[in-house]
């Protein structure tokens, strides 16, 4: 298989790659490059593709816009709230599902359903769950003596509600990936550990966690990138608004609003590039940490 690369083989490879490259090029690379240019347009006719002046005004504008900083802050809260909790919960559930329990297949399906259901449908159900008067969540909390919480109409609770929804929605995907990671761990290690007298927690801590680190690493990168891009959940959970009094506005919502609402195409592109830069930095940090900590 390890033939030397020749012209002919390279051409053959390119031929195979062309369909994918065409699609990625048209729908990913072209927009990325185009919006990079657009982020510098300060005076332009978007529809006729005419640009009269370029500059850094769009970047200065967003960095001075308190709404933009608010949306960055909300997005950070979202990422910090969702990613670690989601990883821990899905790891625990995956570990249980990996044991020999009854109805294992059924449970796996149940946990995966949220991931494949449309966000809009999911949000309709959660809006009912979160309803302060008629919702099942406040009803359940009532038994614990907790007075009703206005999950969706109190600005202080808007982000927590969003985070709960996002964790629940992301579980299925993470669990499936973790399960496949768990199946790749050689049973021998566990048997050896048992002989040495290690308890369940010891085995989990010293075998499962380290040997699963490459899976965890993958999930953390994907989750962080996806969490930075959160939009659908906000849009659907709060009925097209960014939460009560703008309390759950995220970066992508900000971009969406500038683009489709205000027709500020330059500002929207600049904000998109700031988001790209933030994600890029986070991914670099993760790759750096990953190199040190992950066992392959």
């Amino acid at each position, binding site marked *: 298989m390890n033939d030397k690369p020749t012209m002919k083989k390279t051409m053959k490879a390119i031929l195979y790659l062309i369909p994918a490259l065409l699609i990625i090029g048209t729908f990913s690379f072209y927009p990325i*490059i185009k919006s*990079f*240019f657009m982020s*510098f347009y300060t*005076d332009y*006719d*978007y*529809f006729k593709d*005419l*640009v*009269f*002046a*370029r500059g850094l005004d769009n970047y200065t*504008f967003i960095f001075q816009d308190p709404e933009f900083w608010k949306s960055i802050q909300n997005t950070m809260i979202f990422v910090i709230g969702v990613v670690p909790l989601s990883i821990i919960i899905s790891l625990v559930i995956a570990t249980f599902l990996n044991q020999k329990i009854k109805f294992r297949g059924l449970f796996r399906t149940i946990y995966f359903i949220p991931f494949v259901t449309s966000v809009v449908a999911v949000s309709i159900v959660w*809006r009912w769950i*979160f*309803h*302060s*008067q008629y919702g099942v969540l406040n009803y359940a909390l009532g038994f614990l003596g907790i007075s009703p919480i*206005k*999950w*969706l*109409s*109190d*600005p202080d609770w808007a982000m927590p509600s969003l985070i709960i929804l996002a964790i629940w929605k992301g579980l299925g995907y993470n669990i499936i990936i973790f399960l496949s990671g768990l199946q790749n761990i050689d049973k021998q290690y566990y048997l050896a550990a048992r002989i040495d007298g290690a308890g369940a927690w010891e085995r989990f801590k010293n075998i499962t966690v380290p040997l699963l680190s490459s899976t965890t690493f993958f999930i953390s990168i994907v989750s962080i990138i996806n969490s930075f891009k959160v939009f659908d959940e906000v849009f659907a959970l709060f*009925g*097209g*608004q960014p939460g*009560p*009094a*703008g*309390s759950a506005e995220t970066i992508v919502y900000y971009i969406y*609003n500038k683009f*489709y*609402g*205000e*027709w*500020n195409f330059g500002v929207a592109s600049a904000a998109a590039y700031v988001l790209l830069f933030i994600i890029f930095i986070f991914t*670099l940090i993760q*790759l*750096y940490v990953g190199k040190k900590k992950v066992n392959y």
Partner: protein
Amino acid sequence: MKKIVHVLFVCLLAISLAACSNATKPSSPEKQKTADIPTKIDKPVTIEFWHAMTGNLEKTLQTMTQKFNDSQSNITVKLVNQGTYDDLNKKLMAAAKSHTSPVMAQAYEDWMQDYINNDLITDLTPYIQNKTVGWSDSELNDIVQVFRDENSWNNKFYGVPFNKSTEVLYYNTDMFNENNLKAPTTWAELGNAAQTLTKGNVIGMGFENAIGLNFPTWVQQAGGQFVDVDNKKVTFDSEEGKKALTFLNDMVNDKKIARLAGEDNYMSDPFSRGDVAMYIGSSAGISFVEAGAKGKINWATAPLPAGEKASTQFQGTNLVTFNSADDQQKLAAWEFMKFLASKDQTIYWAQNTGYVPVRESALKDPVWLKYIEENPKYAAAEKQFDAGYFFPHLDGAFAMKSAYSTEIQAVLVGKKSVDQGLQDAAKNTQDALDKANK
């Protein structure tokens, strides 16, 4: 790692250098002479009309379009449903960008503002004034004034009013009778009624989440001015503005006799459940309340209570034609617009949808008079034409609206004091206005 950063940096540098050729701005915008328009369609023309009407509204529109198509030998109108208004807005923008705009579409005024700024929609004045296919002066002036005004920019007409609604007061007649109350007509009566009706689980008054958007109504009712259009100055941070916001804030936060729709999205749900005794909302919601309230509560509608004076915003879309269409298509579109805005059709539309007729003559027509006598719920909206206003045509209107709407909401959900909220709202709104008019 270093390599990746390096490569990326070089890439960015390369593309940024590659893209530095500036176009030159045309010194004077080319105004084509539009006085000459064709007045006859001699070949078959098909035009697409993009709309966002669903359910019964769509069925009614289909019936009317069918009637129009049957009456024409050369024009065929094809209806294309584009989903929600939000979807329609996005698709129209994308279509304009890819030069595939439809001939006709529904559009709100703030969309039209953007379309006009980008030279996307057609000035209809030559069609209206044309002797053969246009409207006579009396026909034009028969269109309700507020609708004529909102469709004109610098004395040019860019749209024809179509599905128009306004805010009305919905009230639960069972609860009102129990408490010997009549529909409130002033702020004081509104406050008293809300106080009396708030008992147990029932809250007296309800406001839509869009209360922030409709804040101009309350400022004007208090006798104030919202924005000085000529000088481009936001003027609602005033005594009257404060009075308006204090009135709302007292009801919602201090006395707790009013609530926002909040998690319910629209007030029609809690109102038809009987959780709220009255609310202010769009007259276009009548059919939704009717469906929800059936068998649960009895209700009626009334014009908005007035403060120092009466004021109510008119909402809903207009019909526009895109510049990309050819002359024959534009003429066909104009014929269809004329049809939809004709007396008989606007009555038919209003009867079947709950929107208001757009012609004065329609309001006096025996067919319509008989209809509202039998369906008094539909009468509240049209009684308010004299108090009607529309949000002024300003560049940056969308950004202004979201600026003050967010701050007013922040006050009403208890996050900001009245003074702070009003001040921030005025400042952010002014900033949005300044930015767009730089």
